[in-house]
């Protein structure tokens, strides 16, 4: 009898795929949410001309009138007169970057700059204002200077952000998509029912990987296309490398998700565990800001996290145009997590 029969792996993968696309909420969180996040962050950190240095002028003598005239003539300084009290408060709350207190003694101007040296704006204001003041009072430049300002593509915050968002999204959708589905199937006794069939248990695991890979292409493509169309973020490296690195990333997060979901019967507990696994990576793995900001001795540990490896590899390919060969350490880290995840998950997996 010619039976309507297809391969179990195909059927299982199709089932995963269908379950996902028939859940509108899941679609939004996978595709809509990261795009909204990119819009929000892109607007907040959009490229714009540098702010002028905001300076408060304090004093009751002739000096401040003269100083005000000097500073008002400069385009990179914005000056406001304040009394002592107001100036202090404004400096503390960041409304002004520096307070200037000029004193005229025997025809000689002496100036006090009050600013927070830990804040870059404070230091910049000091340099800008001092330059204006000194040259207005007669200092002459000794070298000829010409300025050339650039805003290099690939070096903006949004260029840094888009690969980070791809990384976060692939991690999040793999963990939630798989973890939740597995735990729910266990609670509904579907896993037990499947365990009573001759279904190969590794087919079941692989069906998650394969369905993930299909979505992965769509997820990555959506964010890359969005970044390119809206913010002009270009992929400098090869698409093939981008896809291959993304596959490695998805494989490692799928392994991790199967491991996290291998025992739990309660979706609440599983959610907690997934958050506990993902939160450190949200923070440490350099999605929103570079992990270089953490102390040096932490870097080797941070680089072993799958999301760090994934983000680094994505940035190398998207921003720096690197080939996959130069990201082999990251790919190795991803492969390691994929392997550990699968092997442990297969061993620990609870079917009933």
């Amino acid at each position, binding site marked *: 009898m010619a039976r*309507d029969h297809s391969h179990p792996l195909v059927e299982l993968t*199709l*089932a995963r795929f269908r379950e996902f696309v028939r859940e509108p909420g899941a679609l939004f969180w996978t595709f809509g949410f990261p795009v909204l996040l990119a819009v929000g962050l892109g607007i907040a950190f959009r490229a714009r001309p540098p702010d002028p240095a905001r300076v408060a002028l304090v004093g009751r003598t002739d000096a401040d009138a003269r100083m005000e005239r000097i500073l008002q003539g400069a385009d990179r300084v914005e000056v406001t007169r304040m009394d002592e009290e107001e100036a202090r408060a404004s400096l503390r709350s960041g409304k002004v970057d520096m307070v200037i207190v000029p004193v005229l003694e025997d025809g000689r101007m002496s100036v006090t700059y009050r600013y927070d040296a830990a804040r870059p704006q404070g230091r910049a204001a000091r340099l800008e204002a001092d330059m204006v003041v000194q040259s207005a009072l007669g200092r002459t430049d000794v070298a000829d200077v010409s300025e050339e300002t650039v805003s290099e593509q690939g070096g903006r915050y949004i260029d840094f952000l888009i690969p980070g968002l791809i990384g976060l999204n692939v991690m999040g959708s793999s963990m939630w998509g798989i973890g939740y589905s597995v735990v729910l199937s266990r609670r509904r006794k*579907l896993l037990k029912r499947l365990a009573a*069939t*001759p279904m190969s248990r590794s087919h079941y695991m692989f069906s998650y990987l394969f369905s993930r890979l299909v979505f992965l292409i769509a997820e990555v493509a959506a964010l890359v296309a969005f970044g390119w169309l809206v913010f002009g973020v270009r992929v400098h490296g090869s698409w093939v490398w981008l896809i291959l690195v993304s596959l490695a990333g998805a494989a490692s997060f799928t392994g991790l998700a199967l491991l996290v979901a291998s025992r739990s019967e309660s979706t609440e507990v599983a959610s907690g565990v997934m958050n506990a696994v993902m939160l450190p990576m949200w923070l440490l793995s350099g999605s929103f800001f570079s992990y270089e900001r953490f102390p040096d001795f932490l870097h080797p540990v941070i680089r072993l996290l799958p999301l760090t490896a994934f983000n680094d590899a994505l940035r190398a390919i998207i921003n720096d145009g690197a080939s996959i060969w130069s990201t082999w350490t990251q790919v190795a880290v991803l492969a390691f997590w994929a392997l550990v995840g699968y092997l442990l998950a297969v061993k620990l997996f609870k079917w009933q």
Partner: protein
Amino acid sequence: MWSLGATGPMEPRTTSTNLTQDVMALSCSGIVKRFGDVVAVDGLDMVALRGECLGLLGPNGAGKTTTVEILEGLMMPDRGEVEILGMRWGQGRDQELRTRIGVALQETQLADKLTVREIVRMFSSFYPRGREVNEVIELLGLTQKAGAAVDRLSGGQRQRLALACALVGDPDLLFLDEPTTGLDPQARLRIWEVVERFREKGGTVVLTTHYMEEAARLCDRVAIIDLGRLVAEGSPHQLVDSLGAQQMVELRADPPLDDAALAVLPGVGRVSKSDDMYRLAISGIGEALPALIAELDRRGSRVVSLTTREPTMEDVFVHMTGKGLREG
């Protein structure tokens, strides 16, 4: 060797251990399963012959589901032997064994968003041989609903879908755990018909139920289970006959009488009492009834209600365990 537990009420008996595979679909002996301090199955022995329908009858918590899941290979017993179709679980032939059994668990929520056809196709793909997907859907009367998602099905339709998944691998042995619990009579009847058609083709069925009608209609042999033990076993007829009663009398009286006074009356067998109702197994209704009325008179007790009816398996169960099938 297998025998009924020595603690059981039936005579211990033995049969040959080498019953050929052609005869025996399933046997288990001395299976014990504990969950912490709770003994779910306490030394159970059973056989099911090929082509037979064996029913496990018992109240909730009797250990039926645990027993069935041990037989299905979903759980390993703490002690005891299980042999299914001449094979044993955990000896390297599990996959082969799984291709030959069909399973419907007590409660499985199949994926909500998949359609009937998609789910049956998926289950079909697990089996190297098996039946045509559409044919099984047709058999279960789900053709109209083949394209409907699970969350659009009624309880009876979901149960039929579960049965379709159990049958699509064309099993030799079918395990059904409370296949009709919670269904209306019509939905129940449809499931019974499908089980009967499976048996007509020579299939063996093991089913658990706490409905006597179900056991009486479908089962060749019934094993009554309580507290993880086999309490009685036999065909529905044999079991009812074992009561030695032609009739059952159910009596309420005010003020109540004591059991001993009723049991000594002529023609009255065992007496049991639940709440304020007596159940009397009557061997001779002609002599028992007048004697009963006379005894009530003599003690100044008034009859609140008195009914007579045919004895059922529930009575067997009540007599063996002192409680009703629906009681926990």
